[in-house]
């Protein structure tokens, strides 16, 4: 029996398949960091930390003449978000229903994807995770809503990376405000600005709803590492006569091995 306790849920095999497929589909769209950084793992539920290879001194000696130091590790963080599905809707799947009401599952998948991406891009201090933007030693490049200036900002970011000795390919993670604007913006003559930006980077353009502004980063590999213990999974919590309570979970942590391999592009006003 695994900690997911799926076998205890009053859910048929067909309904479990639908739940898993729906979650997978939403997660693959919404998870942005996994499209840009190296993923180490899944290392398994037993994995508790990432070895940092360093020592932390311990002042109090265990014995006169004997020193001690603690091995430095980065603990994995377990993320979990719960959601509830109507049992009648799950039973309908078994009867061949093609459009079961699974919006709570979709919302939960978006939530956990957002949590993972926020930790990677902007950090999660309480979980010991320093995000890419805060670790970057480069000054953030200002963005405005004049999208004709956007290719210039992206070109500046790739120049900063080159000058720092960071090779490409370079990718860009687009936050919601950048994405919305760029999808509509055209240069003089009607040429889409998005296509000009695409030429400024030689790696992927990724929709990243958790990103504030945008982030230009190298995807050459070896710079950013997302470590996964238990990969995203759906488990069973409880049920009543009417509904089943499930959860989405994963264990993860993140570290920027070469923080200089990213440049943040930010809006100076309150929007994202």
């Amino acid at each position: 029996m695994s900690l997911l306790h799926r076998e205890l849920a009053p859910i048929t095999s067909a309904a479990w398949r639908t739940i898993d497929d729906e979650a997978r589909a939403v997660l693959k769209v919404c998870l942005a960091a996994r499209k840009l950084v190296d993923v180490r793992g899944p290392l398994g539920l037993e994995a508790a930390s990432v070895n940092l290879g360093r020592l932390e001194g311990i002042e109090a000696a265990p014995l006169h003449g004997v020193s001690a130091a603690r091995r430095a590790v980065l603990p994995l963080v377990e993320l979990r978000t719960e959601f509830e599905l109507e049992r009648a809707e799950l039973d309908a799947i078994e009867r061949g229903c093609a459009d079961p009401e699974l919006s709570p599952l979709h919302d939960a998948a978006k939530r956990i994807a957002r949590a993972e991406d926020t930790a990677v891009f902007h950090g999660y201090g309480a979980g010991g995770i320093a995000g890419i933007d805060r670790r970057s030693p480069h000054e953030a490049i200002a963005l405005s809503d004049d999208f004709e200036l956007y290719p210039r900002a992206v070109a500046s970011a790739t120049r900063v990376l080159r000058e720092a000795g960071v090779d490409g390919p370079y990718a860009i993670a687009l936050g919601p405000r950048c994405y919305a604007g760029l999808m509509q913006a055209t240069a003089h003559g009607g040429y889409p600005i998005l296509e000009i930006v695409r030429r400024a980077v030689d790696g992927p353009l990724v929709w990243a709803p958790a990103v504030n502004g945008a982030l230009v980063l190298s995807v050459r590999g070896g710079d950013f590492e997302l470590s996964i213990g238990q990969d995203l999974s759906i488990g069973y919590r409880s049920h009543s006569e009417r509904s089943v309570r499930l959860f989405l979970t994963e264990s993860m942590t993140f570290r920027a091995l070469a923080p200089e391999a990213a440049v943040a592009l930010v809006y100076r006003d309150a929007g994202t």
Partner: protein
Amino acid sequence: MANSAGYHESEDVLRRETKDNHRALTSMMEELEAADWYDQRVDAATDDALREILAHNRDEEKEHFVMLLEWLRRRDAKLDAELRARLFRSDSIVAREAAGGEGAAGAPKDGSLGIGSLKGRSSL
């Protein structure tokens, strides 16, 4: 400029990641072919010392193959899931596939959704 042989589609439409995968897969094929040739030479050689060297070289090819396989695994979530589901087991390989149960394709052994890495998968 020399191109890697074996593209089945126009190079212009291939992504950078696809070309790198092709390089790795081509190298893996070469390593396995070399191991096969060494196997045959080990059988055919009549000198014990030569046979020993050939067997040593053959095993180095296996090491090279596995290094490339690991490189691919880290970039391909589906391959990663298949390897985790099917390798290092002692039960029947065919029965596991026929049962379609735990460990079958698309059902990672850890009960997860098998998302893994999505690097190189999509761009707007």
